[in-house]
């Protein structure tokens, strides 16, 4: 029952070619930068995993993290709400060259689709995007006289997330606004690996303060003093 993973390389070893990969974080807040970079290392060493579909709110910034994955050529498609935050050069270049696909999803719909996948809800109705081009081709139904759009769950093969405190059973807390998509992605992926700043024994987290219960998490690796993606970008770091 000990879910501890010893090395970053092991933590990302099971992500396969063509996988749908959820990556937690919103911009640089709560982004599992060490896990992402370990995955890039693996790709550079072995050519795998390639052809990934990556789910994240954004599409990478600067020259680290998801942007570095895109630059490395690992990503076939991004599923996101906002691929245009500060310095999205990596995605923009490939997108305009037709070398990467984009599945653009409104942010609240993205969150709810991920939660639905985790909650066994195959589809739900939302007012969001009704009457817009993002609802084209989707089933519309009225409730109480108002039209809604049917949206499907969004599942992943694998998720990598960033927690703050974790225990060896996989229970997680998050730091400040670093929570964002992380708890949802833990629910929606077939396999979930979390990096945490501090790893404790079971009992080290107050049961009332657990945000992600361990049953959603398959592996946990301690990364003390993790790097903060936004801080790296502002420092002009390049991961290549």
């Amino acid at each position, binding site marked *: *029952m000990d879910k501890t993973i010893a090395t970053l390389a092991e933590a990302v070893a099971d992500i396969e070619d063509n996988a749908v990969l959820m990556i937690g974080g919103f911009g640089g807040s709560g982004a599992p930068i060490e896990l992402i970079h370990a995955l890039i290392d693996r790709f550079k060493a072995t050519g795998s995993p390639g052809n990934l579909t990556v789910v994240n709110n954004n599409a990478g910034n600067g020259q680290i993290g998801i942007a570095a994955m895109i630059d490395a050529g690992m990503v076939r498609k991004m599923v996101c709400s906002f691929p245009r935050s500060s310095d999205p050069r990596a995605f923009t270049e490939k997108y305009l060259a037709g070398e990467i696909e984009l599945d653009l999803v409104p942010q609240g719909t993205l969150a709810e689709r991920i*939660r639905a*996948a*985790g*909650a*066994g*809800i195959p589809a739900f109705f939302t007012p969001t995007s009704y009457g817009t081009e993002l609802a084209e081709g989707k089933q519309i139904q009225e409730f109480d006289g108002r039209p809604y759009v049917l949206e499907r769950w969004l599942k992943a093969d694998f998720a990598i997330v960033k927690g703050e405190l974790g*225990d*060896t*059973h996989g*229970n997680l807390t998050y730091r400040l606004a670093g929570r964002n998509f992380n708890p949802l992605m833990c*629910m929606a992926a077939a396999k979930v690996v979390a990096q945490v700043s501090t790893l404790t*024994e*079971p*009992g080290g*987290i107050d*049961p*009332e303060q*657990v945000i992600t*219960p*361990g*049953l*959603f998490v398959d592996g946990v690796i301690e990364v003390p003093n993790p790097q903060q993606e936004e801080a790296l970008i502002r420092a002009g770091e390049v991961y290549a």
Partner: protein
Amino acid sequence: MSSKLSNAQIAWRAAQDIEDGAYVNLGIGFPEMIAKFQPAGRHITYHTENGVLGFGKAPPQGEEDWDLINAGKKAITLKPGASFFHHADSFAMVRGGHLDLAVLGAYQVAQNGDLANWRVGSKGVPAVGGAMDLVHGAKRVAVITDHTTKDGKPKLVERCTFPLTGVGCITRVYTSLAVVDIEDGRFVLREKLAGLSMDELQSLTGAPLHTQGQVADLIVPEIEQ
């Protein structure tokens, strides 16, 4: 029929199949007994619908905290690594396929996997609780039950006649006489009591029992009640 397993022995047998590391929901009543027989050396995490993961035994009498209960409203204790969450998150775990196993009681189980376990007719006050949710989502959904009703009628049947709890949801049944899998719309006998002939067992079963290879003896220890 010479003999049959006690409830404790059925629960013991079901407990042997729960793998180390599993997340399990045991239905209110008889299925709860399974936790008593958890094999040594296995770490099993129990989920209860009202929002607790990782609970342990009942506290000593007089030390109950009635804000710390399970779905059967019995007082529980916590194990290290436990967590609390609200009801929607709790059923996300159930419906979302995050439990390895759910075990329920049954009035009837049909050979197509249908389960009837929530009401026997239209009289009285109907109550469903979480049963209709639990039969969906867990990776394996099993039943523990006496092989027949008190008046000797089969509980393993061709088609359920009582109101259904779920359709095609049960994959294994642990009874007082046998262990039966449900595969491709058929009952497949895996184990039966050694002293019981196939004919006897079939006569107590409401649908054909198939076999695939060896039928093992259903062997359980004596358990003091």
